[in-house]
C-alpha cells in the first residue's frame, strides 16, 4: 500500500517536472550508448560499426523513451492536462460562447449555493460549543411559553423541577436550564443614563456556560455560585453586543449597568462566535443567572412558582450512556415529582400516566427556527435544483450546437484515428472547465443572494448570526456541485459527438436538413419548457398563498398605524397611580402633531404574544369535563377606534371605565357565537377562573372578529377588558401603544421617545414599528418562499427562452440555404416565418404536455401548505401556461423574422 502510494507520488512529481526529467533521461541513454560504442571500439570495430551495434544492443531508443515516460507519469492525467490546456485555449478563442455559458452556470450554481448556505447554517451547522453531538434537549421544544397545565409532550420545566432533575439524573454530566423565550428588558448603560434602551436578556442556570463548554473572551463566564439565592446580580455580555453597542470598550468589564431598577455587574464577554443556545434573529445580548429573575422581572416572576413551567433544559449526555436510557429515567423522575405535588401541577392521573418525553439531539440547539424553516428550505432546494437543471440544459444545447458546427473537424480527427473515448473525454473536460468557472462566479452571486435571502427570512431582525460569506463546507458543496454539473451537461454533447460518422459527414458537410444530433437538442428544450412551467406554477401558487395571508380580512386596519412596544417597570408602583399615569400618557401622545388617536393595551394583534385563560359564565355552567376558555386582552379607551376594529353592538371601552366604575368587557363576535348562540350577549356576565368569578365583568359591547395570533386560523373567541379594571395576570400593565397618524408615521419615533421619558423615566421604548410591518413579520417564511420561487421561476423562464432563442437562431443559420431555395421556389415570407416558429414551438408544446400533469400534481401536493390556495388553481395554471407560451414566441420570433428576411440569392451563394 505504502509502496503504491510512493509510486503515485513520484509519478505526480514526474508530471509536474516533465521537461527537466525528459532531458535527463535522454542524456543518460546518450552516455550509455557512448560507453557501449567505446566497448565495441575496444573490441576492434570500426567507429561507424561500433555505434550501429551499440544502438542494436541498447534497443529502440524511441520505445525506451516512450516506456519511460509512461512509467514516470500518469498517462490519463497527462492527457487530461493536455485537454485542459487545449480547451482553455479554445474557450478563450470564443469569448461570446464562454461568457454566456459561464454566466448561465453562475446563475444556476449561485442560486443553489445561496440556498445551501442557508440550509447549512440553519439545518446542518452545529452550535459553536464543545462537542455539540453530546447535547440533548430534554423535550422537543414544540411548546413555547405555556405556563400552567399539562403538556402534550413534556418540554417546559419549573425551576424546582429543574433542580430536582439536575441533581438526580446521573446519565447527564450536566443539565442547564434557561428561559423558553428571550425577553427584552429595558436597561441603562450606567446609572447616569437618562433613557433606558432594550437589551435582550436571557436567564440561565449557573452551569449554562460550563455545560455548553463555552468560555469567556474577556473576564469570566457564570458559575453555579453566581446562581445562588442572594448572590449579587451578574451578567455575561455577548461579544457582538460589546463590539457594536459598546464599541468594544474594555471598561465594560466590571461596569455596573441598570436593568429595570436593578444594578447588574458585567463580569465577562462571551466567546466571539457564541450566540446562545438557539439560532435566531436578534440573539441574546446578556446572560444573567436564573436566581436574579425575581429582581429583574418583579411582575410575574416565575422562579419560585413550583407550578410555573417556563424553562427549557439541555443536558450533556455522558459517554457510553444511551439517550433512550436517559429518557426513560428522566421521564419517571418527572412523573414522580409531579405526582408528589399536592395539585399534580394540573395533570389528571391518566394524563400523567401517558405523559410523553422525547430527548432530541441538540447539537443545533433549540430548534424553534428550524421548525419554521425546514420545510421551506427543502422546497427551495428543489426549486433551485430545477433552475440549475435548466441552466445545464442550456449549456448542453450550446455545446451540442457547437459540436455540430465542428462536426467536420471531429470527423477528420476520427478518420485520422482519434479514439472516441478521447473525444468524449475532451468534451467532458470542456464542460467541467465551464462548470468550474461558472461555480467560481456563482459563489460571488451566491454571496449577494444569501444577503437578500437573510433579509427576507429575518425581516424585522437587526442582526442574524449567520454568515453570508461562503464557509468551507459551502465552498466544497459548490465545487462538487460544479463538477457534477459539468459532467451532467457534458454527457449529451459528448454522446452526440461520439456518434459522429466521419464518412457521412465528410461526404456532405453541413448540407443535411435532418440529423440525429438534433434529437437530444429537442429533448433538452422539452425538459426546459416542462421545468419552467412547473417553477412558474410553483411561484404563482406561493405568491397567491402569501397574498391571501396578507390581504385577508384581519378585523383591524394597518394603514397609517404605529405600534410602540414599551418596557414598563412599575414594580414599585401602587396600582392607584396607574389611572393618572395612563391618562397623562394617552393625552400627551394624542397631542403629538400628526397623531389622530392614541391607545394603550396589553397586547396588539399579530405581535406574537397571547393571553388565554379558562373562564366561567354566569348562568351558563360548563358541561361536565369541559372548560370554557377565551383569548383575553386588556385595552384602554379609544383602542378599537385606533386599530380600526368595528363595533357591532353596544359600546366600546371608553373613559368611563375606571378602577372604581362597574367592571365591563367587550367581546368578539366569535365569543358571542360560541357562548351565546341563541340569546342576547349584551348584559351577560362572565369572569376569569372558576364559577366564583362568573359575575366579574358585564358584557357591554360586541366587536367584529379580529385575528391576534394565528393568521391561518379563524379568529379566536376573545374578550377585551378595560386596562384599568383588569387585575388578573398583571394585565393592568400595558405593553403596547397604538397610534393612528396622518402623514409619514416613521418620523415620529424621537417625539414618542421624548414623550414617554417625560411622562415617566421608567418607560422605555423597546421598538417602534409600523402596524403593517408588525403583521408582515408573521409571514417571513411564506414571503421567502414566494419571492425566491418567483425569482427562480423568472430566472428559469429567461434561461429557457435564451435556450430556445439559441436553438432557433442556430436552426435558421444552418438552414439558410434551404430557406433560400424555398423562397426561390416561391414560398411567401409568411410561410418561412411560420415554419421557423413551428420548429421552435414544437418542443415547447411537448414540454407543456409533459409539464402540465406534473404541475397539476404539484399543485395538489402543496395546496394544503398554502393559505387559501385551491388544489386545482386554474388561474395560476392558465397564467403560467400563457406566460410560457408568450415568452417562447417572443424568443422564437427574433430568429424567425431574420429567416423571413433572408435574401434568396445571397442564401444560395452561401457556402
Amino acid at each position, binding site marked *: 500500500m505504502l509502496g503504491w502510494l*510512493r509510486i503515485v507520488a513520484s509519478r505526480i512529481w514526474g508530471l509536474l517536472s516533465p521537461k527537466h526529467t525528459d532531458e535527463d533521461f535522454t542524456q*543518460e541513454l546518450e552516455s550509455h550508448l557512448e*560507453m557501449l560504442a567505446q566497448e565495441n571500439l575496444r573490441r576492434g570495430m570500426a567507429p561507424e560499426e561500433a555505434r550501429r551495434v551499440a544502438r542494436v544492443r*541498447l*534497443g529502440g531508443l524511441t*520505445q525506451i523513451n516512450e516506456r519511460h515516460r509512461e512509467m514516470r507519469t500518469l498517462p490519463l492525467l497527462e492527457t487530461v492536462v493536455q485537454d485542459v490546456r487545449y480547451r482553455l485555449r479554445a474557450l478563450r478563442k470564443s469569448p461570446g460562447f464562454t461568457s454566456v455559458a459561464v454566466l448561465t452556470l453562475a446563475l444556476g450554481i449561485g442560486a443553489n449555493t445561496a440556498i445551501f448556505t442557508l440550509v447549512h447554517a440553519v439545518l446542518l451547522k452545529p452550535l459553536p460549543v464543545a462537542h455539540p453531538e453530546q447535547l440533548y434537549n430534554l423535550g422537543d421544544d414544540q411548546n413555547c411559553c405555556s405556563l400552567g397545565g399539562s403538556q402534550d409532550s413534556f418540554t417546559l420545566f419549573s425551576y424546582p423541577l429543574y433542580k430536582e432533575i439536575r441533581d438526580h439524573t446521573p446519565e447527564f454530566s450536566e443539565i442547564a436550564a434557561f428561559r423558553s423565550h428571550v425577553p427584552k428588558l429595558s436597561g441603562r448603560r450606567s446609572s447616569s443614563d437618562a433613557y433606558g434602551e432594550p437589551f435582550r436578556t436571557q436567564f440561565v442556570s449557573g452551569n449554562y456556560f460550563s455545560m455548553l463548554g463555552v468560555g469567556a473572551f474577556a473576564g469570566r463566564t457564570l458559575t453555579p455560585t453566581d446562581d445562588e439565592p442572594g448572590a449579587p446580580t451578574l451578567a455575561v455580555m455577548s461579544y457582538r453586543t460589546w463590539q457594536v453597542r459598546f464599541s468594544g470598550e474594555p471598561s465594560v468589564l466590571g461596569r455596573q449597568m441598570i436593568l429595570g431598577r436593578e444594578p447588574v455587574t458585567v463580569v465577562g464577554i462571551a466567546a466571539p462566535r457564541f450566540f446562545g443556545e438557539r439560532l435566531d434573529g436578534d440573539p441574546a445580548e446578556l446572560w444573567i443567572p436564573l436566581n436574579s429573575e425575581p429582581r429583574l422581572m418583579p411582575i410575574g416572576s416565575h422562579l419560585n412558582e413550583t407550578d410555573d413551567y417556563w424553562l427549557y433544559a439541555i443536558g450533556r449526555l455522558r459517554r457510553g450512556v444511551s439517550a433512550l436510557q436517559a429518557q426513560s429515567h428522566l421521564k419517571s423522575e418527572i412523573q414522580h415529582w409531579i405526582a408528589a405535588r399536592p395539585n399534580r401541577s394540573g395533570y389528571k392521573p391518566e394524563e400523567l400516566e401517558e405523559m410523553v418525553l422525547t430527548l432530541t439531539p441538540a447539537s443545533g440547539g433549540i430548534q424553534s427556527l428550524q421548525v419554521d424553516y425546514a420545510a421551506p428550505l427543502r422546497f427551495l432546494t428543489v426549486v433551485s435544483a430545477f433552475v440549475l437543471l435548466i441552466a445545464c440544459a442550456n449549456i448542453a444545447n450550446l455545446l451540442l450546437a457547437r459540436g455540430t458546427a465542428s462536426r467536420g473537424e471531429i470527423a477528420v480527427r476520427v478518420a485520422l484515428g482519434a479514439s472516441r473515448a478521447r473525444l468524449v473525454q475532451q468534451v467532458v473536460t470542456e464542460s467541467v472547465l465551464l462548470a468550474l468557472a461558472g461555480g467560481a462566479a456563482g459563489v460571488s452571486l451566491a454571496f449577494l443572494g444569501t444577503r437578500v435571502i437573510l433579509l427576507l427570512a429575518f425581516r424585522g431582525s437587526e442582526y442574524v448570526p449567520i454568515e453570508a460569506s461562503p464557509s468551507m463546507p459551502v465552498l466544497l458543496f459548490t465545487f462538487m456541485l460544479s463538477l457534477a454539473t459539468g459532467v451532467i451537461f457534458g454527457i449529451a454533447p459528448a454522446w452526440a459527438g461520439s456518434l459522429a460518422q466521419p464518412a457521412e459527414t465528410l461526404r456532405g458537410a453541413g448540407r443535411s436538413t435532418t440529423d440525429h444530433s438534433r434529437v437530444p437538442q429537442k429533448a433538452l428544450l422539452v425538459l426546459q419548457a416542462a421545468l419552467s412551467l412547473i417553477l412558474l406554477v410553483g411561484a404563482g401558487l406561493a405568491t397567491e398563498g402569501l397574498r391571501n395571508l396578507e390581504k385577508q380580512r384581519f378585523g383591524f386596519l394597518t394603514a397609517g398605524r404605529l405600534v410602540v412596544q414599551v418596557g414598563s417597570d412599575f414594580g414599585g408602583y401602587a396600582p392607584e397611580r396607574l389611572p393618572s399615569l395612563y391618562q397623562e400618557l394617552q393625552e400627551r401622545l394624542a397631542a403629538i402633531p400628526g397623531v389622530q388617536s392614541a391607545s394603550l393595551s396589553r397586547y396588539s394583534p399579530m405581535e406574537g404574544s397571547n393571553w388565554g385563560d379558562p373562564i366561567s359564565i354566569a348562568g351558563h355552567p360548563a358541561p361536565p369535563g369541559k372548560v370554557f376558555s377565551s383569548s383575553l386582552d386588556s385595552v384602554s379607551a379609544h383602542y378599537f377606534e385606533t386599530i380600526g376594529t368595528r363595533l357591532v353592538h353596544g359600546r366600546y371601552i371608553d373613559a368611563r371605565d375606571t378602577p372604581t366604575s362597574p367592571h365591563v368587557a367587550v367581546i368578539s363576535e366569535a365569543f358571542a357565537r360560541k357562548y351565546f348562540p341563541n340569546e342576547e350577549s349584551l348584559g351577560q356576565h362572565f369572569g376569569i377562573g372558576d364559577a366564583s368569578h362568573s359575575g366579574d365583568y358585564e358584557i357591554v359591547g360586541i366587536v367584529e372578529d379580529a385575528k391576534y395570533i394565528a393568521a391561518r386560523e379563524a379568529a379566536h373567541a376573545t374578550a377585551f377588558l378595560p386596562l384599568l379594571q383588569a387585575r388578573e395576570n398583571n394585565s393592568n400593565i400595558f405593553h403596547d401603544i397604538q397610534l393612528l397618524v396622518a402623514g409619514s408615521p416613521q418620523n415620529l419615533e424621537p417625539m414618542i421617545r421624548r414623550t414617554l421619558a417625560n411622562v415617566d423615566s421608567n418607560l422605555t421604548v423597546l421598538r417602534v414599528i409600523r402596524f403593517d410591518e408588525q403583521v408582515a413579520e408573521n409571514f417571513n417564511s411564506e414571503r421567502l418562499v414566494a419571492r425566491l420561487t418567483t425569482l427562480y421561476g423568472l430566472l428559469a423562464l429567461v434561461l429557457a427562452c435564451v435556450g430556445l432563442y439559441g436553438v432557433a437562431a442556430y436552426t435558421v443559420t444552418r438552414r439558410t440555404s434551404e430557406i433560400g431555395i424555398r423562397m426561390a421556389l416561391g414560398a411567401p415570407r409568411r410561410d418561412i416565418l411560420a415554419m421557423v416558429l413551428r420548429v421552435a414551438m414544437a418542443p415547447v408544446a411537448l414540454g407543456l404536455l409533459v409539464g402540465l400533469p406534473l404541475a397539476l400534481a404539484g399543485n395538489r401536493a402543496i395546496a394544503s401548505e398554502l393559505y387559501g390556495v385551491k388544489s386545482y388553481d386554474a388561474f395560476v395554471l392558465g397564467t403560467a401556461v400563457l406566460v410560457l407560451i408568450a415568452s417562447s414566441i417572443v424568443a422564437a420570433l427574433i430568429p424567425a423574422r431574420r429567416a423571413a428576411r433572408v435574401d434568396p440569392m445571397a442564401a444560395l451563394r452561401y457556402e
Partner: protein
Amino acid sequence: MGEEKPGILQGTLDLMVLKTLETMGPLHGYGIARRIEQISEDALQLNQGTVYPSLTRLLQKKWISAEWGTSENNRKAKFYSITKAGRKQLEQEARSWERISGVIGRVLKTEASGE
C-alpha cells in the same frame, strides 16, 4: 508491456539489478547491464535498454537512489546505488526466491522420476 525478452520476468530483472548494486556498489545503467551479462556468462543477452524501466521502477519504490557522477573514462553518467530499504527488500526477495526455486526444483524432479 511485455517488452522483456521471454524468460526474464519483470521481477527477476529487478532482483538481479538490486543484487548487482548490492555487490558492486554505485553503478551506471551500462555497468549494471554489462555486469548482469557477465555474471550470466552472456547466457542472458539483454536489450540493454530494458534495465531502464527496471531502474525507474526501483527508484519509484525508493529501493535505489540515483546521482549524476563521472564514469571511469570521464564521462557524465547517472550512478545508481542501493538504499537501506532496497537491501531489506533484496534480503526478503532472495529468501523467497530460494524457497520458490527450491520448491520448483523439487516439483520438476518428482515429475521427471515419475515418468
